[in-house]
């Protein structure tokens, strides 16, 4: 119940911020569009280019919105109260993660294949792209949130966050793109897909538990 109430609060804040909540999506479309326009001769010839473009843009979109993940709650002291109780902090953290995924991950998972279809991608290939994004975006949210939590309250973000997070995103990026590419090439992609699932289960189980202590530490200093 507590989780549901917190989730409603988070989503309400997202929706009340009005046009601001569309920024990640517009960013996603703008970047994919810029890539697609400049690389149009490659994209029309090879669906694999577009897959890579969409995956990389997904990473950037996710990073863009990470900056504000804990910022407001840290500024108004909500976080300082939440860390006092281990159950409260876990509920808060899980809510934050699910909200971040609802606002960036789900829309991108839906938009990515649509962009692919509109660019002439085969339906099966677009479906597989959507499926890998569905597995990949929660992992991206988890890893990003962990690094963001390490930097809460330092007043540093932007390129420092990017430098710290991007190397950690490489495994999920490589495997996600590999699955799509192998599928397009009609090759076997089972082991790569299993690696995607491994990263998903590993990050979604371990990181929410690690975030509590990390955030607590950020309030001590």
């Amino acid at each position, binding site marked *: 119940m507590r989780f549901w109430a917190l989730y409603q609060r988070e989503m309400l804040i997202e929706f009340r911020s009005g046009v601001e909540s569309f920024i990640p999506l517009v960013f996603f479309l703008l970047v994919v569009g810029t890539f697609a326009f400049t690389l149009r001769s490659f994209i029309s010839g090879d669906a694999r280019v577009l897959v890579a473009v969409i995956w990389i843009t997904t990473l950037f979109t996710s990073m863009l919105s990470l900056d504000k993940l804990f910022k407001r709650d840290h500024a108004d002291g909500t976080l300082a109260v939440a860390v006092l109780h281990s159950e409260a902090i876990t509920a808060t953290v899980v809510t934050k993660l699910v909200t971040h995924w609802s606002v960036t991950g789900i829309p991108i998972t839906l938009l990515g294949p649509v962009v692919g279809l509109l660019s002439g991608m085969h339906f099966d290939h677009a479906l597989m792209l959507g499926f890998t994004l569905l597995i990949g975006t929660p992992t991206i949210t988890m*890893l990003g949130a962990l690094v963001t939590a390490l930097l809460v309250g330092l007043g540093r973000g932007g390129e420092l966050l990017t430098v710290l997070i991007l*190397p950690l995103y490489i495994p999920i990026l*490589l495997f996600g793109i590999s699955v799509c590419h192998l599928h397009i090439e009609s090759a076997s992609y089972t082991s790569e897909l299993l690696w995607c699932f491994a990263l998903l289960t590993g990050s979604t189980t371990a990181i929410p538990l690690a975030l509590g202590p990390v955030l607590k530490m950020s309030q001590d200093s």
Partner: protein
Amino acid sequence: MKFIPTWLHRLASPQHFFGDIKSWIMWLYVLGTIGFLVGSVWGLAFVPPERYQGDSFRILYVHAPIAHVAQLIYISIAVAGVVHLVWKLKMADVYMSAAAPVGCWLTALALASGMIWGMPTWGTAWVWDARIVSTLILLFLFFGLIVLRRVVPNPTRAATALSILAIVGAINIPIIKYSVEWFETLHQPASIELFGDIAIAPVFLTPLFINIASIYVLAAGFILANMRYLVVERNASMTWIQGWIRGQSQ
């Protein structure tokens, strides 16, 4: 804990570490330098040319040991991170901070020597090959650790943040190790495996092992010297350091 030797147990305290380790560093430097010179001269002058690559393969004696030790340092930092999170040992934190720059330099050297080797044999210095890219990522991971240390003002928090980043980054190490088999690549697979056949003729092998051992010893020397420096920096207000400083200035 009876199973830990006393001398090792002593090293977990900054004060004893500072005193005990001093005499080691010079020996590690001397031993590592001599070993590296012996291995390199042996590899450069006394080993026959390789059948396909001629003399250009000889950079292997620098490239392979450095790349190997650089990866190992990252894994050791992740292990130190676990030790720090679980037992809160002060020296684990000191080790992480001291080893990151050494690992960063070794990774950069591994990339540079690989590029030099690539020019005559592959005909190009750089390919966007899985193994090369993952070594580049290793460089960025080391860089991230060094930067994170700098930007977090509170030392306790910095240590924990460093441990967590190192542990999460360690998931990239298997990718570095096995990417050769997973992706299409120009880089050759590892020729030496711990549990398996060695795909190098014995005549090439002895200087390689001498060099691997020497780089281990040299890296240990650098890291320990770095750790001593950090111990001075962090314990500057302690009376035993104050006494040492007074002794130095006389």
